[in-house]
């Protein structure tokens, strides 16, 4: 009897889906459409369905990509962009976190600050760019400030929301067990808002890649963005695409490693 039940369970599954579930390959299903995309890209360019002056072949891009990542100046450009992004994100984080925490816990402060933050957030951040360039010159300073401006809002609003959502009872718990201010913040508030902090940071990080690249393209600040702009306008599309591929890789790896680790910690208890 037991056996037939087992059979009934197994039978409807096809061989492929069994292999997939057993080997946890399901987690990598996303590779398939990506690979199909690359193959399609190779085909349309190889058979000149799209002129190669508009779109280089995928294999050509890969070739340039592998030579580029052995070139120190290319890597330095990526590092430069990444450093600007990280500085901007850190600056925004260190400003937004305390402000958002106070706004989330003190009503008067919230009513004073949040409408202003909303007003500022409604403005398209990039519209400040010419001013920043005027004041700070077309260099890393303008890029860092721009990146921190863009990162401020997602961090501010998620952290504020997280603080407001801390159950009152948890504050009673810290009081009853006579926790001091510092440990209430580090051992209760911070972990309680951490899932919000993580999603705010992640949003800000995604925003900031766009902002940084946009600034570099627009103002020729040294970095990978200006490299893309330079190579494409010089007609060397393969280098441009290789650079885009490199940014994508860095962005994804950092996202998976950094935010993936943080979120897997949070997933244990959420």
């Amino acid at each position, binding site marked *: 009897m037991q056996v037939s039940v087992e059979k009934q369970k197994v039978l409807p599954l096809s061989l492929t889906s069994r292999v997939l579930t057993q080997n946890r390959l399901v987690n990598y299903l996303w590779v398939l459409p990506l690979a199909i995309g690359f193959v399609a890209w190779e085909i349309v360019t190889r058979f000149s369905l799209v002129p190669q002056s508009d779109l280089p072949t995928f294999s050509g891009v890969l070739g340039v990509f592998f030579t580029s990542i052995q070139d120190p100046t290319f890597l330095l450009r990526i590092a430069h962009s990444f450093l600007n992004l990280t500085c901007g994100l850190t600056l925004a984080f260190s400003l937004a976190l305390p402000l958002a925490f106070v706004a989330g816990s003190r009503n008067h402060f919230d009513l004073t600050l949040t409408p202003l933050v909303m007003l500022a957030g409604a403005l398209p951040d990039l519209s400040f760019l010419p001013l920043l360039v005027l004041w700070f010159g077309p260099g890393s300073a303008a890029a860092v400030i721009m990146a921190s401006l863009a990162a401020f809002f997602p961090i501010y609003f998620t952290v504020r929301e997280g603080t407001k959502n801390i159950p009152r009872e*948890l504050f009673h718990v810290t*009081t*009853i067990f006579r926790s001091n201010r510092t440990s209430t913040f580090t051992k209760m508030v911070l972990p309680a808002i951490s899932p919000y902090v993580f999603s705010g940071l992640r949003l800000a990080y995604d925003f900031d890649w766009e902002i940084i690249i946009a600034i570099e393209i627009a103002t020729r600040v040294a970095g990978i963005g200006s490299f893309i702009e330079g190579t494409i306008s010089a007609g060397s599309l393969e280098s441009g695409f290789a650079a885009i591929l490199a940014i994508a890789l860095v962005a994804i790896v950092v996202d998976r490693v950094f935010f993936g680790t943080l979120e897997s910690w949070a997933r244990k208890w959420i």
Partner: protein
Amino acid sequence: MGAHVELDNVTKFYDAKERLHALQEVSFGIERGEFVSIVGPSGCGKSTLLKIMAGLDLPSSGEVRFQGGPVRGPHSKISMVFQAFGLFPWRTVLGNVEYGLEMRKTPKKERVEISTEYVDMVGLGGYEHMYPKQLSGGMKQRVGIARALAVDPEVVLMDEAFSAIDEVTADVLREEVSEIHKELGKTFVLVTHNLSEAVELSDKVVVLSSRPAKVKQIFSVDLERPRDRTHSSFIHMHKDILRLLKEELENTMIRHKLKGISELQKLHDMEAAGREDVKEHS
């Protein structure tokens, strides 16, 4: 010397203008090792009273004394169990139980030893490394109780501690709390709206009136433990308290109605006056 815990004319207004009157001159004493329940109509201020006893809130006038000294903030010998458990979801069972000791800077090794002992006491041995999300409501409250006991308090305050748990689990947990009370000899104060629960667990049931809450009556429960809910004296006591509360509720409703009627009368008067005005003008 006075009682272990003494409430002396505890009065509380919710607002500075003294309009929202929550507690009015509440006075009673709790002896060391006693199990006292506080019952009253919902919204009467029971929980506010417990918060004042815990030092989470201050009375507008009067005071709570613990071992003769006024309670004006959290006290190391007064601990609390919360209605919604108040567990830190990012900490494991053991981590949550350890929390109070951690705040007292107890060394890690000792902390783990003590916490493990209390985790075992509430029957959660083997669950030390689980997170609250993996536990049922009853198990979560066991963690809450272990955390409250781990700091070795003299008074354990329980705010509707069994009301967020399903009835069968709550019943088992009540029996265990009763055992723990007997075994440890600590003073327990339970705020509840469940009268059977109050009679089952307590040496003394304090009945509060509706807002502003005053002590309406104090019942001594001299029934043998473990208590049988089907025993006639249990049922009698339950009935007596219930009658008292119903009476209180009816009084409040009559008061509200009277207030309503007088306001209605005022409206009628105003309307009548208005009509006369119209008449005069025409």
